[in-house]
């Protein structure tokens, strides 16, 4: 039986880790290599690193730092941020990253993504879709640059990415990022039902019961969280942490 993956999502800014609220308000968390070492000791299922400035500032991934992280990391390691072409993708895989996460590139002509999928296989590619409710309470796909996109419906967009061959789809919610008020169950359920690939639920987790909720009620294949693994206690003191396996197993199969 396949265990439900529990994945800390760590945000890179320059050489440090930060945590955001609703994709803004950054708090400094600490050193990424130290975080990897802690998560090694905790025997975490998988790690996701996202460089939150790469696309915005149009810079390439920090290959040197990522290579250090991948080498330290004894668990699967996915990375997203500033991967805009085949060459960058190839370089990242060659330095030891298992899976590549694409967001901005999903909104570009599909040819480059197709080339990456054809060469490296679907298993290597995660399509990351950010969703946000608009003024009328309707979910829309949100691109960082705020650009007009033709397909606004997250379900249609996720299905299209599925058809293009991405191996997994990660759904993050701008509204719930850093809020620790539960996952976006309703939309996640629609997307997970519509696609054939695993869906990674992100944004909103506060506790293990949120994991159970999104797996059982939305059909998520994996659960990701940021705040829960970098903050501790009611006052949200910075402390990198991960629950004991026996605790997780009380909630997840």
């Amino acid at each position, binding site marked *: *039986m*396949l*265990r*439900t*993956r529990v994945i800390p999502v760590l945000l890179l800014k320059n050489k440090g880790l930060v945590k955001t609220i609703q994709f803004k308000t950054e708090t400094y968390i600490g050193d990424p290599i130290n975080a990897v070492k802690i998560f*090694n000791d905790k*025997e975490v*299922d*998988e790690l996701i690193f996202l460089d939150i400035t790469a696309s915005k500032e149009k810079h390439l991934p920090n290959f040197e730092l990522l*290579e250090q992280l*991948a*080498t*330290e*990391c*004894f*668990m*699967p*390691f996915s990375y997203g941020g500033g991967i805009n072409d085949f060459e960058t993708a190839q370089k990242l*895989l*060659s*330095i*030891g*990253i*298992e*899976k590549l996460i694409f967001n901005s590139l999903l909104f570009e002509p599909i040819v480059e993504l197709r080339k990456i999928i*054809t*060469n*490296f*296989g*679907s*298993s*290597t590619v995660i399509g990351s879709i950010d969703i946000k409710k608009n003024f009328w309470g309707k979910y829309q796909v949100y691109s960082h640059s705020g650009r007009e996109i033709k397909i606004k419906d997250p379900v249609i967009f996720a299905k299209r990415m599925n058809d293009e061959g991405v*191996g*997994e789809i990660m759904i993050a919610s701008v509204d719930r990022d850093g809020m620790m008020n539960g996952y976006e169950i309703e939309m996640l359920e629609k997307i997970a039902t519509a696609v*054939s*690939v*695993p869906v990674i639920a992100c944004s909103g987790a506060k506790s293990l019961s949120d994991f159970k909720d999104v797996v059982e009620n939305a*059909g998520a*294949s*994996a659960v990701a969280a940021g705040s829960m693994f970098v903050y501790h206690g009611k006052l949200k003191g910075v402390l990198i942490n991960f629950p004991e396996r026996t605790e997780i197993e009380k909630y997840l199969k």
Partner: protein
Amino acid sequence: MIVIVNYGMGNLGSILNMLKKTGFTDVLISKDEKTIQEADKIILPGVGAFDHAMLNLKQSGLIPVLNKKVMHDKTPVLGICLGMQILGKRSEEGNEEGLGWLDADVVKFRFDDPQKKIPHMGWNLVKDVKSNILFKNMPHQEMRFYFVHSYYFKPNNNVMITGETNYGISFTSAINQDHIYGVQFHPEKSHKFGMQLLKNFAEINA
């Protein structure tokens, strides 16, 4: 000396690092024919697509030396993930021929149940269907490893099967025939069990 063959197909640093952590420092990542010629053991890694891997291997010019080391010198070899799949003859994923050291095909997962997602991705159990040196010092039938693949290795000779995993069907997740070993999962990304498995491979008396 253990040589991790670098033919441009992914994750090598963590294999090296994990081996070093278990105490084996005589490990190299290399694409140099002479270095591979001198290896006591060979690790064949790989992530990505079958044809891409075989074409890269061809272009690297390393196939003759690998054939010689494995088929003639009987140097122990461990294929990891796609590195295991290319030990076989062919794959449904592509048109290129595999290395053909083992009599096996690589086939795609096919499920009628839409809930069964492809790729098979995540931590799953490996059932040791027979005792094998790679599983030494591990909890019997409770070994959990990290998988990520859409195709699986299908031996035409069941004798080589040492481990099986269930995902919709039961498929071969570990094999051993003579000095040739293969694992579908990623030991270098599987914490303590992965570390133990790599240690076991490193300790094989060639």
